[in-house]
């Protein structure tokens, strides 16, 4: 909600920027009123038969209901949630419901972005109404077909669990039986949706549709794609960002068993072999000289000092303002300041980057674990010089996305190699390449200042952010895939070039400031400023984007205020949430469930945080213990969540739990550091992930709601760092202003 008000929401911004950046294309797009969209006949396979009322679902003669999921299933359980929405209105028999991930088609675009893109926790939010209508449309056709078959009024027939029932006549027909006749009827334009009070699937804890495939090893991830004659390549990227290949000697690599080619591609040097093992062994034998000229001059250890200097001297861009903080400061009884630092972060998806492509006979086929089908299609079309109708993108299961797979660098590599070799090629990165060639969550430096009244309430709040901006870098990379399909190659490329020069200027701060303002708290004078300083390390969208940074900063500093004013952190928050009853309720629920105010178990201490991530409200209490050596353990976390109507509460709870674990890795364990333009970490020994013996028990309590559903894939991440660090303060009196927590800081005398 915060960012929406500011007009800086990531999705809206991307959409607007994409069109704005497209320049010429914009006018054409508007004049044409959008783009041609395919109907059910084109998107469903011809041989499938059955009822295909729309592009979202198909009812087969075998009673199976197949739901097309226009988002990537990467663990967030979107497939089950979207299928539930369809099945609810269809009155389907849940046991007969299947899903398939939609191919790249304009009809499956995410309206928030104008692209087929799984990001921003938008999947359920954007499909809830369309999928309900799609299900209802099919239900009405099936009822009409039954009524016609029996010669009775439709009003006397009722759909229920995969059948249409005529109670008065004591008869019923199954959806499979009705499908052929229903398919002959025109799909109704007007549909009547169910009263949410009568939902029988939505709101229930239903198991994942993909659990069995994943528990038996049958789920096909990108890395598991297999084709006849498939070659495997691995890519060696420049060790430092900005470097280019100068010269190389492939002789020794080529002499290795199974190795077919060593090829220079745009992103580096590829070794092509029969198998990945052969390719990766041979890659170690390459003799490569990299050009030093373009190497970025970045040493991440030096960034906080550099940014502190800029904060004191450079001109800042105003991102948000309320009231007059300077004037208010004069009336304050006391003031406090704090500087907060956050490092670059890697996605560390368990499945390394990979993609399979086959360029042949004027077509390009792509199998990719990607969050961004349109960008994958655009990359392939651009490289091959093909129209979109000649590029097929098949989305596999995805071994972790977290935003990394919004970028499609690995797709471009596979397509380039398949084109060069005239054979199907699977590109597989080693873990080391994956760790060192990400699009990282930006590092940032934050200067906070608060001025308090007699009661310890903040009269004025100032927040200055210094660092790179994820959107300023990402928009130019992705713009050409967000231009409508029919725009020819020339203007499309021009849009990309234009946005490369415009976005860094205009988008600056729109990413970095997300989640920092407006504040959910009643503070009358607020100012958020930004100084862009980008050392050139590739940055991108990381689960919950800058909310992961700004929630830490805001909620920690609020805790500092409470401590300075001698107030209980819960009490101060509730006091400041008078105008925000939804968040207040969430904070109260989390506190109550955690036993805030009661004495915690021996050796444990509690910390509190709350955050609003795109209208999903989360309150969080962490219980921590700190050993004499400064080791922080987090045995228990309690969350309260208001995400509107929870389509599948079980899925909501596990996503919040997962977000907490993801955020804890960044709070306690891992960071990306850069020296001389090179990422120092390489694998899980130096970028460790939270393990089972370190994982808390996470309790999730949902606020009952009938408001439209919001997103839950990211909302768990932002709250955990401040909740833990506030608990560490309660335990030790030490304020953590830099994460991951360094135990040495807690033992320092």
């Amino acid at each position, binding site marked *: 909600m915060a960012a929406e008000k500011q007009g800086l929401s990531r999705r809206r911004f991307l959409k607007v920027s994409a069109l704005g950046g497209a320049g010429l294309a914009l006018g054409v797009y508007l004049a044409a009123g959008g783009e041609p969209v395919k109907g059910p006949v084109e998107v469903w396979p011809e041989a499938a038969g059955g009822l295909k009322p729309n592009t979202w679902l198909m009812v087969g003669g075998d009673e199976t209901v197949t739901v097309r999921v226009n988002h990537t299933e*990467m*663990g*967030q*359980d979107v497939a089950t949630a979207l299928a539930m929405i369809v099945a609810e209105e269809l009155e389907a028999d849940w046991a007969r419901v299947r899903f398939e991930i939609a191919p790249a088609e304009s009809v499956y675009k995410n309206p928030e972005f104008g692209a087929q893109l799984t990001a921003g926790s938008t999947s359920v939010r954007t499909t809830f109404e369309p999928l309900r209508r799609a299900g209802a449309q099919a239900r009405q056709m099936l009822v009409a077909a039954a009524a016609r078959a029996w010669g009775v009024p439709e009003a006397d027939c009722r759909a229920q669990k995969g059948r249409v029932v005529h109670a008065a006549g004591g008869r019923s027909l199954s959806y499979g039986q009705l499908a052929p006749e229903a398919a002959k009827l025109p799909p109704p334009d007007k549909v009547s949706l169910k009263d949410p009070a009568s939902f029988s699937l939505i709101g229930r804890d239903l*198991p*994942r549709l*993909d*659990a*069995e*495939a*994943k*528990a*038996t*090893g*049958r*789920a*096909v*991830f990108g*890395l*598991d794609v*297999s084709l006849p004659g498939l070659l*495997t390549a691995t890519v060696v990227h420049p060790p430092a960002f900005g470097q280019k290949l100068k010269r190389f000697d492939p002789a020794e690599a080529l002499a290795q*068993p199974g190795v077919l080619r060593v090829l220079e591609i745009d992103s580096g040097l590829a070794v092509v072999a029969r*198998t*990945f*093992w052969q390719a990766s062994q041979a890659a170690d034998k390459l003799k490569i000289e990299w050009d030093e000229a373009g190497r970025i001059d970045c040493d991440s250890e030096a960034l906080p000092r550099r940014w502190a200097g800029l904060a004191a001297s450079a001109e800042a861009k105003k991102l948000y303002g309320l009231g007059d903080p300077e004037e208010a400061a004069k009336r304050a009884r006391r003031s406090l300041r704090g500087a907060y630092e956050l490092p670059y972060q890697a996605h*560390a*998806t*368990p*499945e*390394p980057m990979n993609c399979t492509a086959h360029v042949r006979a004027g077509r390009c086929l792509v199998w990719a674990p990607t969050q961004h089908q349109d960008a994958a299609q655009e990359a392939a079309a651009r490289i091959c010089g093909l129209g979109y109708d000649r590029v097929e993108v098949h989305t596999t*299961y*995805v*071994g*972790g*996305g*977290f935003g990394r797979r919004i970028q499609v660098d690995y797709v471009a590599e596979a397509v380039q190699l398949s084109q060069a070799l005239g054979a199907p090629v699977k590109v*597989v990165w*080693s*873990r080391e390449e994956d760790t060192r060639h990400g699009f990282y969550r930006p590092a940032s430096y934050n200067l906070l200042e608060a001025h308090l009244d007699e009661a310890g309430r903040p009269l004025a709040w100032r927040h200055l952010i210094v660092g790179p901006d994820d959107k300023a870098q990402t928009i130019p990379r992705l713009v050409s895939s967000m231009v409508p399909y029919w725009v020819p190659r020339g203007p499309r490329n021009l849009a990309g070039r234009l946005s490369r020069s415009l976005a860094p200027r205009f988008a600056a701060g729109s990413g970095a400031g997300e989640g920092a303002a407006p504040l959910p708290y009643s503070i009358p004078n607020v100012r958020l400023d930004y100084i862009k300083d980008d050392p050139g390390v590739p940055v991108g969208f990381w689960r919950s984007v800058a909310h992961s940074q700004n929630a830490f900063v805001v909620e920690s500093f609020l805790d500092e205020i409470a401590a300075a004013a001698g107030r209980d952190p819960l009490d101060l928050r509730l006091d400041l949430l008078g105008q925000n009853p939804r968040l207040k309720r969430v904070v109260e629920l989390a506190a109550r469930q955690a036993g805030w105010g009661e004495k915690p178990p021996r050796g444990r201490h509690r910390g509190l945080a709350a955050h609003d991530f795109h209208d999903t409200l989360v309150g969080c209490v962490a219980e921590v213990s700190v050993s004499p050596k400064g080791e922080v353990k987090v045995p228990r976390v309690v969350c309260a969540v208001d995400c509107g109507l929870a389509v599948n509460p*079980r899925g909501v709870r*596990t996503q919040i*739990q*997962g*977000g*907490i*674990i*993801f955020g804890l890795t960044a709070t306690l364990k891992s960071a990306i550091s850069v020296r001389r333009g090179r990422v120092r970490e390489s*694998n*899980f*020994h130096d970028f460790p*992930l*939270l*393990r*089972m*013996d*370190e*994982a808390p*028990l*996470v309790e999730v309590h949902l606020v009952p709601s009938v408001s439209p559903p919001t997103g839950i894939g990211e909302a768990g991440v932002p709250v955990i760092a401040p909740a833990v660090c506030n608990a560490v303060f309660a335990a030790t009196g030490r304020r953590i202003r830099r994460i991951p927590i360094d135990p040495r800081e807690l033992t320092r005398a």
Partner: protein
Amino acid sequence: MISLEVNGKLHRVEVDPQTPLLWVLREQLGLCGTKYSCGVGECGACTVHLDGEAVLACVTTAAEAEGKRVTTIEGLQGPPAERLKQAWLEEDVPQCGYCQPGQIMTAAALLARNPRPTEAEIEAAMSGVLCRCGTYQQIRRAIGRAAQGSGHGG
């Protein structure tokens, strides 16, 4: 040439004996349930059984597996394993699913040698298998559920 007994079937594969078992399974035998994630024995995604013991296939050579019974997620069977897989579904454990074969293989080896593990024993056995999605809570419950149903004393 190496002879490998995988999931009860004997295979003769033309491969450098120093090739990690992981890649023999995935690239020679087409058994892709065993996952590559770190390649250096840090994450457990590639866990398989060698004569019933959990091993990391990315740091086990084909030569080391020769003459032993190799079991992968595709071949995991028997009543305790079936109970475990059932518990996995009942607790709805997977998220992205990528680490899950490694988790299940590790858990199955644990239950085979210790049918009623304590919480601490579960933690000790499972903490080498990383899950970026954070399904640990569900994994604990699934193992506990499978152990409950084992009928063994303990």
